[in-house]
């Protein structure tokens, strides 16, 4: 066989392999979703959403889990969004060249790679024990806030970076101060990008399980939390608890809860992508 013919075969073969691998990945995703839907879909009804946990699989529901997730989502937003966006603004608009800012930058790159369970150990000691908040919603939200801060900061910086210099210069030219320029011009222009990052970060927070296990969130909470100091469970904790049991009925409950969690996650990601596309198409610098 001539080497030219061999080269052609190599090229064709890789084309096929690439296509097969790509479709296999998509196929696995499909198998995965169909399996979960097949297993859990029939278990979802109004009672499942409004019942407290129970030792009997057929009576157990996810009321405490989804209300816990809603609490966590709210509290984490309140803590992480202002700090993350503020830090992002500082790094991108103020601290361009100083050493303090570059130390923060290296640090953020590092934090993004720290396993989530390590944040759990941090939350357990600092918030749970030293601040005495125990295994409360507040400890959970603070811990998850630290976990997603790097994500929000990086997203904020990327969005701010995309705003052209000319906009800032025009604002300065009209006599605006630095902060007035940021507040009235730069932030509105980058809002879509920042929002996208925030939503993606929050969707990651509500899917986290490991750090919450470590801070001592409970799998069995027989009441709906009514204050940030209450003990709690969340959707992923409830799922973990159910799928760790040997009885098949609890596995079915787990699959049903997974469907609900995936719907929440996908809706949040969908909204984020929607904002990103709208933001990108609206702006033509």
């Amino acid at each position, binding site marked *: 066989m001539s080497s030219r013919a061999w*080269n052609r075969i*190599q*090229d064709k073969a*890789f084309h096929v392999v*690439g*296509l097969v*691998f*790509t479709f*296999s*990945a*998509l196929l696995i*995703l499909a198998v995965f979703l169909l*399996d*979960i839907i097949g*297993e859990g879909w029939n278990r979802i009804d109004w009672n499942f959403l409004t019942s407290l946990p129970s030792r009997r699989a057929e009576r157990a529901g996810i009321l405490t889990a989804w209300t816990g997730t809603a609490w966590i989502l709210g509290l984490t937003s309140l803590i992480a969004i202002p700090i*993350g966006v503020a*830090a992002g*603004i500082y790094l991108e608009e*103020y*601290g361009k060249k100083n050493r303090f800012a570059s130390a923060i930058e290296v*640090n*953020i*790159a*590092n*934090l993004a*790679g*720290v*396993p*989530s*369970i*390590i*944040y*759990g*150990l*941090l939350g357990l*000691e*600092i918030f749970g*024990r030293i601040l005495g908040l125990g295994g409360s919603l507040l400890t959970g939200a603070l811990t998850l806030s630290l976990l997603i*801060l*790097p994500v929000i*900061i990086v997203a904020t910086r990327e969005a701010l970076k995309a705003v052209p210099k000319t906009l800032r210069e025009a604002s300065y030219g009209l006599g605006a*101060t630095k*902060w007035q320029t940021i507040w009235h011009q730069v932030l509105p222009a980058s809002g879509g990008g920042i929002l996208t990052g925030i939503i993606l970060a929050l*969707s990651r927070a509500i*899917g986290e*399980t*490991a750090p919450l*296990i*470590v801070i001592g969130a409970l*799998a069995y909470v027989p009441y709906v939390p009514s204050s940030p100091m209450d003990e709690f469970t969340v959707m*992923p904790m409830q*799922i*973990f608890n159910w*799928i760790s049991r040997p009885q098949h009925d609890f*596995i079915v409950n787990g*699959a049903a809860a*997974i469907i609900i*969690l995936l719907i929440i996650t*996908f809706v949040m*990601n969908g909204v984020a992508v929607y904002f990103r596309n709208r933001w990108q198409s609206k702006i033509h610098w």
Partner: protein
Amino acid sequence: MKRPSEKIIEFGLATSGAITLLITVGILWVLFSESISFFKVVSIWDFFTDTQWTPLFTQKHYGILPLLSGTLLTTLIAVATAMPIGLTIAIYLSEYAHKTFRKRVKPIMEILAAIPTVVYGFFALTVVTPFLQSFIPGIGTFNALSAGLVMGIMILPLVTSLSEDALYAVPKSLREASFGMGANRFQTSFKVVVPAASSGITVSFILAIGRAIGETMVVAVAAGQQPILTLDPRQGVETITAYIVQISLGDVTHGSLEYNTIFAAGVTLFLFTFILNHISYGLKKRYHQQYE
């Protein structure tokens, strides 16, 4: 002239930035201060050489090796799955696939990345393990193979999207020069584009390794809780992360030696990922300089 309110705002923003530094300080402080009381009782030598990990038994041994081997085994399986497949898909999408195909596939990959990890654990336990049991004899309900494979699927989008970005960023002129010399697409991809994007691809690999080492829920659900020093993927193993989960769910008294083991395990885990982070950060800096 600066107005005073401007200064206050800048100070407020800088404080938010400083909080991220405090997180790192907090992590280091918690991990080291808590594990010091552990290492006062158990010598570091025993910790790294004893081949048994039995803190909850009457006959106590504190050798991290079984947990390390469990972590490395599942990581190895995950990485051996995700690297070749992820890189192939990345090269295919960047060099071979039609633009519209690439545009359609990337968001679907993002869906894979958005799925919570506990859901992957469910997948490993209820789909992959029974499937493996159908043709591999002697494989347990909890095993390293299933957890590792599913972790590989989980980190696949990370490898694919970062490698693809790196390949896509290689300037067109390089490809054109290669085509001009008579090379075909396969030769251009593997002899020109992949080497040019090698540091970006390496970063994606290192980040994937870091994710696999630190991954908790998949292994906690599907790999088991048996700290055995083994490299047999059919066996159940326990990873560092799964051990921390096990202790956190149990009722070990706070402050006891048994309890402090999770911080000693945590330090070990943190050091691994810290080193990997630093390598990837250094590489990232380098390849940004190359083409920008």
